[in-house]
């Protein structure tokens, strides 16, 4: 049996797969951030909090209304998206004429509020959410035991990411969207309702965060701090991929999940910081990001 740097190949395979699973979360979340940044030029710091809200909405649907996982997978993102639209209409829309840093600061404040409120009402210990029956159990792949639910996470995230990419890059609606990113005034002059489009885009972006939250709920305990720990990492993913680049955000998400997974084998202590090291290097060498166009 050959070994790579002292790690048996089946362990390595397992870690790559786990990295891919974690990368699925990064991909969906960073995709949402990238979509929002592309059109609104806002760095949505509240993304992590809305991801957490998605998980909580799923939990509430189950515990207050008896609505299970599968409907929640659709409903929770819609609810989070609707909430996002309210935020966009009432607050973010007032900042478009200003420097994007104000958007960052505003959404930072929103994140604090949302997290604080959930902490007050639900404590910090975390709430349990069961894996749906259909997906319990797992497959023995030889090199590792793969829980069915984790396999589903990868599938769901690939589907959503690809769907979004297709919609933006290949459909007429997406073409308007891309055009509005380039020149909102001109697109408005052609009779497209740009403010409506912006509103829906923000709603869609945060709905993606909500979706990731529902996906995460059965794996991690539903916890008010779950987004806080993730948001900074996801930021880094978007920056590395190239801000506003859809494909960049998706691919970088999966890729960094894998890099992080490998770090957990070779230098586990460093797995929390490796993404920032990569971000700093990328920004130094290729500031527009791996997949971004030069500004």
């Amino acid at each position: 049996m050959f070994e790579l740097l002292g790690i048996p190949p089946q362990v390595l395979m397992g870690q790559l797969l786990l990295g891919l699973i974690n990368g699925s979360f990064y991909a969906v979340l960073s995709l949402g951030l990238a979509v929002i940044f592309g059109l609104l030029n806002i760095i949505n710091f509240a993304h992590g909090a809305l991801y957490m809200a998605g998980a909580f909405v799923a939990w509430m649907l189950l515990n207050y209304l008896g609505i299970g996982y599968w409907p929640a997978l659709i409903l929770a993102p819609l609810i989070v998206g609707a909430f996002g639209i309210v935020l966009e209409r009432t607050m973010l829309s007032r900042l478009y004429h200003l420097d994007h840093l104000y958007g960052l600061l505003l959404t930072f404040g929103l994140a604090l509020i949302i997290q604080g409120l959930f902490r007050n009402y639900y404590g910090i210990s975390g709430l349990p959410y069961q894996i749906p029956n259909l997906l319990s159990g797992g497959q023995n792949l030889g090199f590792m035991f793969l829980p069915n639910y984790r396999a589903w996470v990868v599938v769901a995230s690939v589907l959503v990411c690809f769907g979004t990419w297709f919609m933006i890059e290949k459909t007429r609606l997406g073409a308007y969207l891309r055009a509005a990113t380039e020149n909102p005034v001109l697109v408005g002059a052609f009779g497209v309702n740009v403010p409506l489009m912006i509103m829906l885009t923000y709603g869609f972006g945060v709905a993606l965060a909500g979706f990731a939250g529902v996906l995460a709920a059965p794996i991690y305990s539903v916890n008010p701090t779950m987004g806080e720990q993730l948001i900074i990492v996801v930021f880094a993913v978007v920056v590395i991929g190239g801000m506003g680049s859809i494909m960049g955000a998706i691919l970088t998400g999966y890729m960094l999940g894998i890099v992080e997974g490998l770090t957990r084998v070779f230098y586990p202590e460093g797995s929390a910081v490796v993404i920032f090291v990569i971000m700093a290097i990328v920004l130094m060498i290729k500031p527009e990001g791996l997949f971004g166009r030069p500004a």
Partner: protein
Amino acid sequence: MAMAEKTSDAAPQAQAVGMPALHKVIFGVLLAGLIVLPFFVYPVFAMKVMCFALFAAAFNLLLGFGGLLSFGHAAYFGGASYISAHAAKVWGLTPELSVLCGAAAAGVLGLVIGSLAIRRQGIYFAMVTLAFAQMVYFVALQAEFTGGEDGIQSVPRGDLFGLIPLADNMALYFFVLAVTFGGILLLYRIVHSPFGQVLKAIRENEPRAISLGYDVNRYKLIVFTLSAVMSGVAGATKAQVFQLASLTDVHWSMSGEVVLMTLLGGMGTVFGPLVGAGIIVTMQNYLATFGAWVTVIQGVIFVVGVLMFREGIIGVLARWFKRSL
């Protein structure tokens, strides 16, 4: 990147020639107030406020006057607090030397990180500073001398200049007052020097400053390093006060907090950061029993601040009184 949208409209009387009478009066009243303050409030609390006031003022030098939003200033504040705690505890240095060590370390860190960060602008600048701050946090968590989660505890308060013992809260208070007030005056002097005027020019219109022949990057690097040094003085002093350096000081939420203080008080104003720091620290202290509500309130301040009072408290006052504050 015009971050500050016409803050307080640098009134013409605040030219580089000395301090305007109004500012002299305010500083005078402030100093007098601070001298009697420890007889009325708990000195340790007052010292904490002063340390954060200096930190916010140092941050404001970069954001309000340099137009650069750093999202990683905790690295300098916290980094310096570790170094100064280590200097006092392990090397047995006197308090003033420990603070200097901390400030010097923050300066070196600022110079290195700054020289990389200033090549980028806007959000990318913020992200680079954040990335490096996360690395500093990582070092603080992992390195042997920082004590990991425990931090560096039981830092002796030592004798000032090897002569005056600072174990007593009152004695320490006046040391901290001298350091922080001196630091704030120094920052004031920097802002109102010809150097500060160039900074303002760069902030308002960078291409124009370049075409006027200024080496913009050099100015940015200097202001970044100065801001890091002064943040370091604040962090190092805080470590002496609390006899402790801990991960809180290097965590990214500390970087967010200093933005909050500056924004709340009024970026680009002289007194805004001091007011902002005072309010936030007081709030954290007195609302501590409400647990997570503190976070909610801070969030509300952020939101309201960004939506309605982008000039901050002092910025609004300055507009009312039509004076530069």
